[in-house]
């Protein structure tokens, strides 16, 4: 039996899929192993990708871009620091600077320092420095989001709710429904007045619209989950073929047998304890 890297990968994929599915029976070591592996690999992959797509080319690449020819004075001293780093890891800091198409821009020292501050979170004494970085991130995100939401989610949506009423019966009914739904929904979320009398009746209509919306969201959620199940089943069917040495059948049998033995043992133990 020949096991190429592709076949080993397929066996691994089948094992992890079945290990995750095994949770539907009950929590078990296969599921735990797959879950932990997923979390670890995801964290490692994200960290590595962030470093090689942003920090190395766009941060270090702007602080120490590749230079041709002789350097003197301050610039030579600056690149002396770079050479010192390069002594530790020449892959990150290659000889002569980082060639990613950037010009030198020392303003990027600010994000570099803020990034280093973030790592001080691990220190009890200097942990407070990380707050500066967090404050910057939170402030930036809040500012960016405020602008985006105000423009696209409030102004554009208000404009979008100005609908034509007299463009055929279908359009008229649709427009009236959207307007009633929007207004009654907004009434429901107005909490400064008690929801009684006419106000209560209107907000109750709002609840109906919200319920329909939640129903649609639930329907879409089911559709999405079934699609993911279909995706996994595709792979399981594909990897059950002879070219993959029937990986699905072998691993399914192995997992079922081990879980069965475990269940049998647990049952025996429970019976002994209760006796």
């Amino acid at each position: 039996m020949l096991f190429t890297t592709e076949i080993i990968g397929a066996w691994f994929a089948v094992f992890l899929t079945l290990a995750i599915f095994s949770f539907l029976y009950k929590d078990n070591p296969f599921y735990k192993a797959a879950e932990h592996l997923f979390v670890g690999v995801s964290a490692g992959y994200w960290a590595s990708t962030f470093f090689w797509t942003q920090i190395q080319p766009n941060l270090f690449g702007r602080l120490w871009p590749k230079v041709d020819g002789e350097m003197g004075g301050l610039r030579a001293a600056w690149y002396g620091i770079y050479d010192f780093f390069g002594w530790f890891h020449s892959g990150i800091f290659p000889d002569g600077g980082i060639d990613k198409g950037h010009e030198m821009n020392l303003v990027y020292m600010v994000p570099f320092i803020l990034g280093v501050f973030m790592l001080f979170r691990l220190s009890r004494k200097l942990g407070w420095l990380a707050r500066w970085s967090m404050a910057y991130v939170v402030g930036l995100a809040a500012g960016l989001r405020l602008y985006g939401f105000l423009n696209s989610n409030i102004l554009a949506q208000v404009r979008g709710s100005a609908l034509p009423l007299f463009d055929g019966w279908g359009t008229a009914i649709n427009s009236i429904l959207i307007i009633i739904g929007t207004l009654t929904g907004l009434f429901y979320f107005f909490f400064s007045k008690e929801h009684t009398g006419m106000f209560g009746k209107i907000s109750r209509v709002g609840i109906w619209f919200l319920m329909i919306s939640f129903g649609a969201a639930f329907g879409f959620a089911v559709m999405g989950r079934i699609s993911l199940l279909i995706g996994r089943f595709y792979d399981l069917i594909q990897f059950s073929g002879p070219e993959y040495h029937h990986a699905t059948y072998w691993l399914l049998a192995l997992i079922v047998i081990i879980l069965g033995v475990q269940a049998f043992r647990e049952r025996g133990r429970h019976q002994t304890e209760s006796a």
Partner: protein
Amino acid sequence: MDKNKFINILIKLGKVDRRVIFLLIAIVVLIPLIKPLGLPIRATETTQRSFNAVDALQAGDRLLMSFEYGPSTKPEIHPMSEAVLHHAFLKGIKVYVVCLWPDGQFMAIDALNAIAPQYNSVYGKDYVLLGFRPGNEAVVKGIASNLRKLYTVDYQNTLVDSIPMMEGVYNLKDFDLVFSFSAGYPGTVEWVQYGSDPTGVPMTTGTASIQVNEIIPYENAGQLRGVIAGMPGAAEYEALVGKRGLGTSGMDAQSIAHLVIVLFIIFGNITYFLERKRSQKKY
């Protein structure tokens, strides 16, 4: 059979172990995958509008595709991205790919490697993969204002200045259409907020089912040209392009599974009301 006995059986069935339901769903999904039924597929208006937006582009126009999904939503969104790539290469549209998710880059490589060779499309001339950049909405804002500042190299570390089709491309306004393939944050919402709305560049999207409710208001308000919704949307786009793919072949299983789930919901409600009625009678 007397009425009480029948109600007893129904109530008992209503309390069936959840694992039996899992097993039934697995069976009804598996059978149509092994033996397809060939149920008809008809494009919904939102998918048709997405198709029309791409179809309106001319040969040589620039399409920016953004991959914001990973392996977890691949079955839903990958068929869409492949169908749109078919459409774009068929029409001679220049395709520029960026990724807001790190695993989106894998998805993009996979889709481009599968589709581009079928049309003899050349990297750097007909399509380019600029790759992933971290920063979420800041990346979209960066592309909108100055793409060259964010992307000095492509995903293979080739200098962007040396890629022929990057000539004349400096920011979002240099594109004719944005197509976002999104499974969450950052994704379509961020492209609308920081890309399409501020620049006025037309945009359309393909999203995971779970995101559709969040996205549809943007389409209704005209901020998006169209929406491809989940796997059914992918199947519809495949039908419009005339390229059957994973979306189409998954639709039988999807339809049957929905039918079974609806039956379960109806059955669950009937048994719930029967049980409630019985307990009310007792007291």
